């Protein structure tokens, strides 16, 4: 039993955090959102730090990392509310790595590892896909088979999600696509569980930000001549926020570790669903309380806490909301 990150994982997390603190503060993030919705420069930097190569097999120029290796990175992304389309590429790369042919792996994965290739995955031919406008390649599940196509060949209508992620409505037709894998359902379920575990970690990071910033506010905001954090009604509420965060963090650890270690798909799925239920409940609790405890300021677009609210609202439901996962948890 050991809940620590390894030295390498910690070093990576530290360098990601340092980079985000320096070059991805709230104002920089705002500028990126006001512009293209993601940043080539940032992407290059992420690739340079090894993030795009982290989950790619060493056979194709990556580091062969798993969900636990990415967990601290995703937590850092969650804290900084990063909008860069890293996760869509990682899911698609996981699918290529597990379901693609050798030739396809050789053609795609080294480019992903080097940061030259971005991808996204659509679970159906007409879908809203995060990261699609920035992607070079799109993977799409058609019934049981998985196809890959140049993103430029796919009609898409770009938009921004509620939490300012770059996405597109796509209309995929298989005529111009190559087959990546037949009967890919199991590979897709695995990749989605992988992504769901990472979403849990990202939500944990966003919750940490929401808890910390609310605590700071309770200590500095004065009413009736005293910091509002001196009021017991508010103290108990923020304590419950921190408890929700800790419980969610525990479940994210469980999900990431089971994705990496479990040989049994049902065991993996059960752990991931359990985690997503807890994380969804905690995300809703923490985000709502963080806004309420900020008072009117919590509603303001100017404050980062209103943006962590938006991110947590989406993350709680991305890759299945609590009800969806309750259904799956009970069926396993």
């Amino acid at each position, binding site marked *: *039993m*050991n*809940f*620590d*990150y*390894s030295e390498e*994982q910690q070093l990576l997390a530290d360098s990601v955090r340092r980079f985000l603190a320096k070059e991805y503060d709230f104002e920089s993030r705002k500028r990126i959102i006001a512009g293209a919705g993601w940043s080539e420069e940032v992407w290059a930097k992420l690739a340079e730090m090894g993030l795009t190569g982290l989950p790619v097999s060493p056979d194709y120029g990556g580091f062969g990392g798993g969900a*636990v290796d990415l*967990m601290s990175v995703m937590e850092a992304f969650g804290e900084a509310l990063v909008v860069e389309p890293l996760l869509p590429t990682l899911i698609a790369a996981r699918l290529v790595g597990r379901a693609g042919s050798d030739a396809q792996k050789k053609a795609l994965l080294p480019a992903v590892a080097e940061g030259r290739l971005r991808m996204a995955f659509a679970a159906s031919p007409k879908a809203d896909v995060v990261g699609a406008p920035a992607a070079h390649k799109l993977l799409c599940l058609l019934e049981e088979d998985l196809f890959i196509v140049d993103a430029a060949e796919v009609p898409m209508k770009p938009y921004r999600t509620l939490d300012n992620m770059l996405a597109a409505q796509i209309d995929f037709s298989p005529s111009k696509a190559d087959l990546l894998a037949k009967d890919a359902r199991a590979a897709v379920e695995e990749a989605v569980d992988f992504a769901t575990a990472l979403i849990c970690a990202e939500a944990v990071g966003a919750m940490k930000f929401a808890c910390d910033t609310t*605590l700071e506010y*309770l*200590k500095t905001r004065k009413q009736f001549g005293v910091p509002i*954090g*001196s009021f*017991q009604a508010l*103290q*108990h509420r*923020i*304590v*419950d926020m*921190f*408890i929700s965060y*800790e*419980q*969610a963090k*525990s*479940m994210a*650890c*469980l999900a*990431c*570790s089971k994705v990496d*270690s479990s040989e049994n798909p049902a065991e993996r799925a059960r752990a991931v669903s*359990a985690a997503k*239920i*807890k994380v969804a*409940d905690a995300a809703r609790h923490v985000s709502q309380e963080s806004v309420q405890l900020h008072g009117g300021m919590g509603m303001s677009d100017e404050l980062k806490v209103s943006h962590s609210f938006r991110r947590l609202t989406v993350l709680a439901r991305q890759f299945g909301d609590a*009800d969806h996962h*309750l259904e799956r*948890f*009970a069926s396993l």
Partner: protein
Amino acid sequence: MDLSYSPEELAFRDEARAWLGANLPGELKDKGHYSKDELLRWHRILARQGWVAPAWPKEWGGTGWNVVQRYVFEEELGYSGGPPLIPFGLTMCAPVLLRFGAEAQKKRFLPRIYQGEDFWCQGYSEPGSGSDLASLKTKAVRKGDHYVVNGQKIWTTLAHYADWIFCLVRTDPTVEKRQEGISFLLMDMKAPGITVRPLILMDGAHEVNEVFFDDVQVPAENLVHEEGKGWTVAKYLLGYERMNTGRIGESKRQLAKLKELAKQKRNDFRFRDRLSRLEIELIALEITNLRFLDRMRRSGQPPGADVSMLKIKGTEIQQGLTELAVECTDPQASDEQSVALQKKYLSMRKTTIYAGSNEIQRNIIAKMTLGL
């Protein structure tokens, strides 16, 4: 990061589980309330094996197990369904004596606690002093080589079984800082002037009592630590290793029983989802507990205020389990099993109130962890 136990830890767990399974008498399993004889019978079985006080120093009978082994054992003990080990002697009075007691006190009391020869209870709460414990009024006045004690304690768990009581008493009513006027005193329950009166709780059970002190003479040698240092002693006990606060082993057993019971409701999806959420709360609590344990193992430091989180979640889960169990019974049920489940629900409402109410636990986290 690796969430699983090591092969050695798993072997240890299997050994503990097998031994508990083979040595826990069937008639002691899963009873709501236990007689003094039943409690002591199990205590003595564990004492003979050398496993009744794992955390004590080895010279006094401790096992020398590391924190993970101690946690695993406590969880297995809870999961076994046996009578609870009553904490007042083993994990409250004894650690205090080990830390603050005079050598003579240790020699006199510790072996008897270990062997289950003395049954202890705890005299903290008073009618006017619950959450605000430092306001306590039970008075101890020094007269020669004795203290004379007058006053009243309340909610004293199992005082009607007890041979001894450890009490917080006021030895100095004049000090400005009221905490500094409190002392920690050990009293023989057979001393003249002590009266125990039962308090029957809403499940009909006699578990707690009022204890009255009327000119009780207590030898001065029964003072622990110095006069006026009782609050320091009490605070030490609060910070003392309380890794089983979440009662995870017991809740796992109750969850397994509840799932069995809930088979009749398998088409009730509203119920099913609530049961799933509760199960997930328990999984999350277990991992949170292991995270604290891991941190503790690494730092060598006791877990501190965060333990309050385990108490809050653990008791909420314990209550949630009994609440769902009640929903598997008919509201007007007459059969023994259903009535027992309903009474258990009534009884478990105490858990969020005792040992520092969950509101007090939140105060502790707000102050100690969050700095509010």
